[in-house]
């Protein structure tokens, strides 16, 4: 049966602003299916973003939402979670928002292991502002600010998150639409800071400049580079050249979670009065 997305979309908000073939819509649908499967209550769920095309997502979703300042989704979301630890707090945004201006907030949310889920739509570019390179733009690729090729190496968001202390890290792609909701649902259920990176496409400012002829070519690239973690175990280093692992990459259920630890601080402080 057709999935009923309408019950999660604010009335009158479609069509959304994203360009033809932009993967952000595919990710939004995945998030909606995940929230629906988990039976999340709208009044107990907050979707929080910064600024960028990806960060426009909360405007469409019919639950508690916050569209904040560039790079600051994690800071605002932390405020929501600390005030109402019982809420499901989901951060969404782009690679620029999360790893450039918001990089610091990102790593500290990971370090704290606060029970929130961060969905980061990595299209390797600042889409909204016309295609400047981001910390995720691969070496040699073109952006409006690197017309002769980007000299910087790009971040590996998943490794960054694991290194900084996130306790659930997964990766999917906009091509593998069927997997997106499953990864997000597992991330939301995890008690701790969970990060789901979705490799995405921006045909408008990235595809065009990097000689992708169409949205379909960009989708096929996502299909070709992705290797599920299980399949990768049986592959040689040579076979894995240029590939990107997908699925649940890391999970640690032993590390203390921040709101629970903070509750203990409150208890100790009150006992000391």
């Amino acid at each position, binding site marked *: *049966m057709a999935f009923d997305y309408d019950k999660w979309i604010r009335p009158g908000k479609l069509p959304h602003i994203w360009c033809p073939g932009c993967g952000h819509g595919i990710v939004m649908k995945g998030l909606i299916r995940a929230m629906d499967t988990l039976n999340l209550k709208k009044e107990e769920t907050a979707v929080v973003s910064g600024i960028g095309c990806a960060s426009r997502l909360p405007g469409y979703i019919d639950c508690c939402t916050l569209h904040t300042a560039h790079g600051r989704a994690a800071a605002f979301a932390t405020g929501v979670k600390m005030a109402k630890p019982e809420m499901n707090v989901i951060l969404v945004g782009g690679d620029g928002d999360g790893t450039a201006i918001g990089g610091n907030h990102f790593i500290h949310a990971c370090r704290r292991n606060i029970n929130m889920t961060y969905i980061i739509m990595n299209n390797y570019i600042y889409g909204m502002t016309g295609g400047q390179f981001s910390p995720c733009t691969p070496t040699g690729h073109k952006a409006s600010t690197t017309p002769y090729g980007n000299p910087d190496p790009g971040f590996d968001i998943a490794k960054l998150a694991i290194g900084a202390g996130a306790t659930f890290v997964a990766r999917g792609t906009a091509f593998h639409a069927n997997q997106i909701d499953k990864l997000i649902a597992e991330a939301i259920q995890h008690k701790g800071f969970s990060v789901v990176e979705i490799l995405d496409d921006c045909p408008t400012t990235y595809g065009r400049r990097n000689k992708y002829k169409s949205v*379909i070519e960009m989708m096929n690239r996502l299909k070709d580079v992705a290797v599920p973690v299980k399949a990768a175990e049986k592959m040689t280093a040579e076979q894995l050249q240029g590939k990107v692992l997908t699925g649940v990459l890391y999970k640690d259920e032993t590390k203390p979670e921040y709101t629970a630890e903070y509750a203990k601080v409150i208890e100790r402080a009150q006992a000391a009065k």
Partner: protein
Amino acid sequence: MEKKLPKIEIIEKYCKGCHICVEFCPKDVLEMKGFYASVKNLEACISCMQCELRCPDFAIKVITE
């Protein structure tokens, strides 16, 4: 037994003509007609839901019973 065909609804006011549903349909059921996606050969549809799942724009619904 005859195969049950779904109803495929394309919401033109949402469709942005990206071709994704057309290209990734495993049975070549859909085509672009002018700017919008359109059903070309419903008989071949296997209700796999791939088109609905992939459409970034909430513009295609595969209605089965």
